[in-house]
């Protein structure tokens, strides 16, 4: 009987790990397919392409005007990162250091945009942006992307600021530091690791943010992921390899920033740090 239990347990553990392995093998094979296809001269009815070439990267670059798209992408992403920091960090500081009437309502206001999916609030938001003339412009895309990123920065930074001892700030005051000195010489160096982590996560998320950018961008304000969507959507117009070359460029940019981000944060934080908050009550 006990033997049977041990056997059943081993079988269970084996099947759980088989499942994980199956998932990861398929995931990696899927990514490998895209990379292989992007370097294939011809790939039909065979396990591997007939021959390999890099010409699709050149053709993708000119067909999809990737230089324009990449410039737009980085302008949008860096503007979103900078503005999220400027808006989010001071607000997180106020939330972490003060108890004021209506704090719970403010917290709810910052939680909601993270819980409501982008498509749901993106359509009314796009309507408002189009009516104010910001729809289709880069400013509109940046504003729309701030809706989930500012709350994200606030929610990541609040626990980080809470663990900085307020006595350090009081000590600086006692020694006669002005508000500017206090900020520049005491707070900023202490906040920097948390800000770096939060803003790198914002960066990775904004590169991949499809829905909001798609709903608010026009022909001149498309980011890479939106351009990739249109390319896949119109598949058949261009060669598959060309679309895959663009997908590889997108993947490379995302993964490079992900690797940089992972030097400073735990991978699980990309999902959980901000999403865990609602359970805290």
């Amino acid at each position, binding site marked *: 009987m006990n033997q049977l239990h041990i056997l059943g347990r081993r079988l269970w553990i084996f099947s759980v790990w088989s499942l994980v392995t199956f998932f990861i093998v398929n995931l990696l094979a899927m990514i490998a397919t895209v990379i292989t296809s992007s370097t294939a001269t011809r790939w039909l009815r065979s*396990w591997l392409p007939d021959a390999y070439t890099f010409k699709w990267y050149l053709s993708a670059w000119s067909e999809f005007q990737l230089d324009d798209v990449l410039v737009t992408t980085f302008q949008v992403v860096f503007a979103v990162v900078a503005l999220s920091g400027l808006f989010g960090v*001071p607000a997180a500081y*106020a939330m972490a250091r003060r108890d004021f009437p209506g704090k719970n309502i403010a917290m709810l206001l910052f939680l909601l945009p993270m819980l409501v999916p982008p498509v749901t609030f993106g359509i009314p*938001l796009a309507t408002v942006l189009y009516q104010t003339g910001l729809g289709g412009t880069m400013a509109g895309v940046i504003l729309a992307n701030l809706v989930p990123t500012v709350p994200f920065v606030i929610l990541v930074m609040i626990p980080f600021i809470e663990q900085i001892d307020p006595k350090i700030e009081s000590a600086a005051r006692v020694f006669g530091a002005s508000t500017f000195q206090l900020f520049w010489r005491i707070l900023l160096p202490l906040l920097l690791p948390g800000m770096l982590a939060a803003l790198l996560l914002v960066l990775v998320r904004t590169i*991949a943010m499809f829905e909001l950018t798609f709903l608010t961008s026009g022909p001149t304000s498309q980011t890479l992921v939106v351009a990739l969507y249109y390319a896949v*959507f119109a598949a058949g117009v261009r060669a598959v390899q060309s679309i895959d070359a663009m997908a590889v460029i997108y993947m490379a940019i995302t993964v490079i920033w992900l690797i940089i981000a992972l030097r400073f944060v735990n*991978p699980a934080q990309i*999902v*959980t740090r901000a999403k*865990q908050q609602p359970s805290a009550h």
Partner: protein
Amino acid sequence: MGHKHQTGLKVRLAARGLDGVTLLIIPSLLLMIGLFIYPFLYGLWLSFHPKDGSFLGNYARFFADPFLYETINKTLWIAMPATLINILFAVPVAFRVRLMQNQRWLTTLLVLPITLGTVLVAEGMLNYLGPQGWFNRTIMLLGLTAGPVKLVHNYWGVMLSLIITGFPFTFLLILSYVTGIDPALENAGKTLGARATSRFRHIFLPLLIPGLAITFCLSFVQAFSVFPSAVLLGAPAGPTRVISIAAYQAAFEEYDYSMASSIAMIMGFVQLGIVVAVLAVRGLFYRGPAVGGKG
């Protein structure tokens, strides 16, 4: 006198937590009100002002036209199973992974599909799961099927994409809840002779229910708003015409922002309804600390 009164007010405000530091929150609050609350309220107002001038015209049209109202069922029919599958698979995996010393390589791999996003996953799946892709070649080589299995441009394509991006998300959330449960509680059960299955049933599951409810809500809401993969991997005119496609088409193909807002509001209310229902059910279960006390 006036000066004294002023300082008095300032001190009293500061005592309630209102001073210069508190004001730092104002820019973010205004931004959220302007870009989140106002558009939502405006959308709600707009949804009651349709082109034909009647009050409920859009909602009446939505629930009279099967092409529109069936999107709710179609979306639920994709989002519900996808969410349940993700949770059912994520719980046992999280229970194994919690025992691992070094989880980092695994979490890194799983974070990959989330960061790459649904559009890239869609392009990868079109290649990989297509009739000439490696997946179909492998299962034909193994003799599992005679011909290629159709896995894209139908219901299953959308379902699989929701699993590929949704499973890691669900898993990482559940892992954070599972690792938050004090191992001393399990050890106590072990010492008293409880087997793994009954330890799970009687110790972990009750403690995990609140976390599972939250995870279900977050995963479901994400799945219910599925958009790019329903277009790229599904049959967007047929079985995978989800509600976000209907809203998008109303806004950007018919330029009827009033109708689009109505559909977005309906989408929001269905999501809210499910979330409220799940949280109400959760309220029936144990609510308390997931760590051992000394009492």
